[in-house]
C-alpha cells in the first residue's frame, strides 16, 4: 500500500460497494439467449480495481485454485497496463475469459478479500473477465514455451481439466494431443453451461488459444472406444491425463420417469447448448418445451436448465427442491438471476411419480412434502417425507437435474485402473496419479460433479506431476 494509486481520485474514501455488473434487464433477457452479464466498461473496471487494497499478504490468492497473482494483475489493470495484466493472469490460468464468468468467486478468492469485512469484496472475477475480453478485442499473446522435450502426452477430454492440463504441459515443452469425444471442444463449457452465461464463441476462443499454444485437439475420438488408455501408452504416449468429466445422468427411479417430456438436465442442456436447438429448425436438433415446466434439483445445473426453459418459451418454470432455500447448492448470483427472471421455487417437495396422457407424454407430477431432519453426512439437514402430504402439479415438461455419475467407458476398458464404488477414478494425492504408471486423472471424473475451476486446478496440478514424472523418466 506504499505507492499511490495511479488512477484513484485523490485520497477519496474507498467505496465499500463493488461496482455492479451491467446486465440485460430481466424482462428482456428472459426471452433471449444472449449473455446476461455485459461486462465492465473500462471506467467501471478502473473504479473497481481501485478498491483493491493491495494487501502485502493477500488472502485472495490463497482462495484461488490456480493461484493467480490477483493483487499484481489488479495493480496492472488500474495502471491501464492491460496487456501486462492479462499476461500476469495467463501465467497461471490459460482460460481467463471462462473463469471470469463462471468461477464461484464468492466461495474462493473473493471470500477472503479484506474489503469484504466491512463492505463488499473486490469483484475479482469481473476484473479478470474485463482483461480477458480486452485481450480478445486487441492482441492475443501466446505464452512462452520451454524448449521441446521429445515427450508426448495424451489428454482425454477437452473440458476445463483437459484444456488446462494440455496448456500447462505444452508450455513445459511437451507434445500434447487432446482426444475429445464430442464434435466441438470445451466439454461442460460447451454442452453444459448455457450461452447466456458463457457464450460459446468465448469457449471456442479459449480452445483456439490452447490450439495456438501448439496443442493438437482431435475431435470425435472417444478414448475407451476409438483408442483405449493401454493402447495410447503402447502407441508412443509417455503419459496420459484423464479429464473425461461427469457422465451419466442420474434419475430418481420413480414411476413414469421414461414418459415423453421428461429430460435429464444433461439431455436438455446438450440439446440446447451444444446442438443449439433453441435455434431449431435452423439447427437440426429439436427440443420440445411445454407451458408448465418443472426442474427437479437445486444446483447450478438446475438453475441453468430452468433459465433455458424460460428462454425457450415456457409460460412458467418451477424449481422443485427437496430441501429449503438455505440449502440450495446453486451460486447465490445464479439463484438471484433466476428469481429476477420470474422462476419460482417450490421448496421441501420431491416427485414420487409422473402421470402420462394417452400419448405417453407427461401431464402431471405427484409430489410429496418434505421436512428437514437431522444433518446427514454432508452436514446438511436430511429431508424426510411428510406422510400423507402428497399433492399433484400439472406439468408438461420435466427436467431432472439431480446430478451425474461418472461415465463408465474408460473404467470398463482400462484394466488395472482403480476406481471407487461410485465409479470415480482413485488418485493417490493432489498430483492426480492413478493406480497405473504414467496415467493421471483430474476433474469431475475424480471428484464427482464439482466446479469448472476445481477441475482446472486439478488439471494444473496433474500437469506439474506429469512433468516431474517425464523429467525423472528421461534422466
Amino acid at each position: 500500500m506504499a505507492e499511490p494509486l495511479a488512477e484513484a481520485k485523490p485520497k477519496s474514501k474507498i467505496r465499500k460497494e463493488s461496482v455492479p455488473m451491467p446486465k440485460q434487464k430481466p424482462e428482456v433477457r428472459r426471452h433471449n439467449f444472449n449473455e446476461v452479464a455485459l461486462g465492465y466498461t473500462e471506467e467501471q473496471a478502473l473504479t473497481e480495481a481501485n478498491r483493491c487494497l493491495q494487501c502485502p499478504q493477500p488472502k485472495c490468492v490463497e482462495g484461488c485454485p490456480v493461484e493467480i497473482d490477483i493483487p499484481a494483475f489488479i495493480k496492472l489493470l488500474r495502471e491501464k497496463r492491460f496487456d501486462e495484466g492479462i499476461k500476469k493472469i495467463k501465467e497461471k490460468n490459460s482460460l481467463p475469459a471462462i473463469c471470469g464468468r463462471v468461477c464461484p468467486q464468492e466461495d474462493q478468492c473473493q471470500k477472503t478479500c479484506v474489503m469484504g469485512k466491512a463492505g463488499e469484496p473486490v469483484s475479482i472475477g469481473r476484473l479478470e473477465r474485463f482483461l480477458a475480453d480486452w485481450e480478445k478485442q486487441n492482441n492475443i499473446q501466446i505464452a512462452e514455451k520451454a524448449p521441446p522435450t521429445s515427450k508426448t502426452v495424451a489428454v482425454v477430454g477437452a473440458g476445463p481439466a483437459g484444456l488446462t492440463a494440455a496448456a500447462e504441459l505444452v508450455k513445459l515443452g511437451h507434445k500434447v494431443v487432446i482426444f475429445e469425444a464430442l464434435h466441438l471442444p470445451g466439454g461442460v463449457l460447451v454442452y453444459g453451461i448455457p450461452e447466456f452465461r458463457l457464450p460459446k464463441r468465448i469457449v471456442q476462443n479459449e480452445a483456439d488459444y490452447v490450439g495456438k499454444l501448439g496443442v493438437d485437439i482431435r475431435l470425435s475420438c472417444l478414448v475407451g472406444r476409438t483408442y483405449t488408455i493401454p493402447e495410447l501408452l503402447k502407441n508412443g504416449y509417455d503419459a496420459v491425463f484423464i479429464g473425461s468429466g461427469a457422465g451419466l445422468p442420474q434419475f430418481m427411479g420413480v414411476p413414469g420417469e421414461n414418459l415423453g417430456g421428461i429430460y435429464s438436465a444433461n439431455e436438455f442442456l446438450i440439446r440446447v447448448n451444444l446442438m443449439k436447438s433453441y435455434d431449431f429448425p435452423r439447427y437440426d436438433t429439436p427440443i420440445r418445451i411445454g407451458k408448465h415446466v418443472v426442474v427437479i434439483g437445486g444446483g447450478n445445473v438446475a438453475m441453468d436448465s430452468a433459465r433455458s426453459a424460460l428462454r425457450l418459451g415456457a409460460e412458467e418454470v418451477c424449481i422443485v427442491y427437496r430441501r429449503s432455500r438455505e440449502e440450495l447448492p446453486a451460486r447465490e448470483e445464479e439463484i438471484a438471476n433466476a428469481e429476477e427472471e420470474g422462476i419460482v421455487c417450490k421448496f421441501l417437495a420431491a416427485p414420487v411419480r409422473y402421470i402420462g396422457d394417452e400419448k405417453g407424454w407427461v401431464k402431471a407430477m405427484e409430489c410429496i412434502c418434505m421436512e428437514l431432519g437431522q444433518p446427514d453426512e454432508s452436514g446438511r439437514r436430511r429431508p424426510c417425507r411428510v406422510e400423507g402430504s402428497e399433492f399433484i402439479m400439472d406439468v408438461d415438461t420435466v427436467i431432472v437435474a439431480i446430478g451425474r455419475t461418472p461415465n463408465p467407458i474408460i473404467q470398463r476398458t482400462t484394466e488395472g485402473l482403480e476406481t471407487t464404488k461410485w465409479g470415480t477414478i482413485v488418485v493417490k494425492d493432489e498430483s492426480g496419479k492413478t493406480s497405473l504408471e504414467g496415467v493421471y486423472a483430474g476433474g469431475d471424473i475424480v471428484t464427482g460433479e464439482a466446479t469448472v475451476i476445481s477441475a482446472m486446478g486439478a488439471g494444473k496440478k496433474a500437469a506439474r506431476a506429469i512433468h516431474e514424472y517425464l523429467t525423472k523418466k528421461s534422466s
Partner: protein
Amino acid sequence: MHKVVAVEELAPKIKWMEVHASEIATKCRPGQFVMLVLGAKGERVPLTIAGFDRKKGTISFAFNEVGKTTKQLGLFKQGDSIENLLGPLGNPSEIGKFGNVLCIGGGVMIAPMHLQVQAFREAGNKVTTAIGARIKDLLFFEDKMKALSNKLYVATDDGSQGYQGLGFLNDVLETEKFDRCVAMGPVVMMKQVSEMTKPFGIPTIVTLTPIMVDGMGMCGCCRVNVGGQMKFACVDGPEFNGHLVDFEELVNRQRVFMPEERLSSLLWEKSGG
C-alpha cells in the same frame, strides 16, 4: 474428414455407404455403431455399422432416407467427405459358439444383420436367417444372406415376396430347436419375435436404436426399461435381452420428436435440399 468410398442403392430410399475411417475400422466389431454429424448445424445421428474392411480402413453403414440428415447423406457421392464420425460406440455383440442360431433382420437393419450372420457362422454356429421388409421392393441382400446362412427365410408384410408377416416363424420354432436368436429391425418386429421365442425359452437378443444425442453415455435420452431397470442403450447396449425389454415404452420414446423431425425434413425439401 472421412471420404466416401462408395455408395450403393440397396432399395428405393435405402442406401449403403462405405466411408474411409481407418481408426474405427481397426477397432469395430459387429453390433457397434457410429455417430455422424453433417455440417456445423447438423444433428448427431447414430448408424449401426454394417461392414468394415480393416485393410482398406473403411466402414460401411446403411440408412433409410427418411429424415433431414439421412436425406442429406443420401446426396453424398463418392469422393465427398463427412466431417464428423465417432466410433465405434456401444458394446460389440456377443459372438460365441452357441450351436443353432436364428438371425432375424428387418428393413434397413438387414444390412448390419449380415455382419452378425457372418460372425456367427465363422464362430462355428449353424445359422438360420430370416429377412423381411414391408414390401418386395424394399428387400435386399437376399443372395448375400443365402450364401452366408445355412438356411434363409424371406417375408414381407404384404406377402408380395416370401411369407406374409412373421407368423411363419412359429412353425420354424416348432420344427427346429434354436439355442439363440438375434433380432435387428423395427421395434414392432423385435417385440413380436421376442414374444414368439419366449415360450420356447430361446435366449433372444435385440438391438435397440432409441433416440440418442451424444451416443456415449451423457444425455440419458436413450434410456430403456429392461427388466424393470433403467439402462442406457449407448453404454449398456445396444443389445439387450428381448424378453425383458419394455417395447411399448421404447416405441413411445422413439416418437417424442416426430413432429419436429417431420418439420425439419419438410423444410429441407422445400428449400430444394
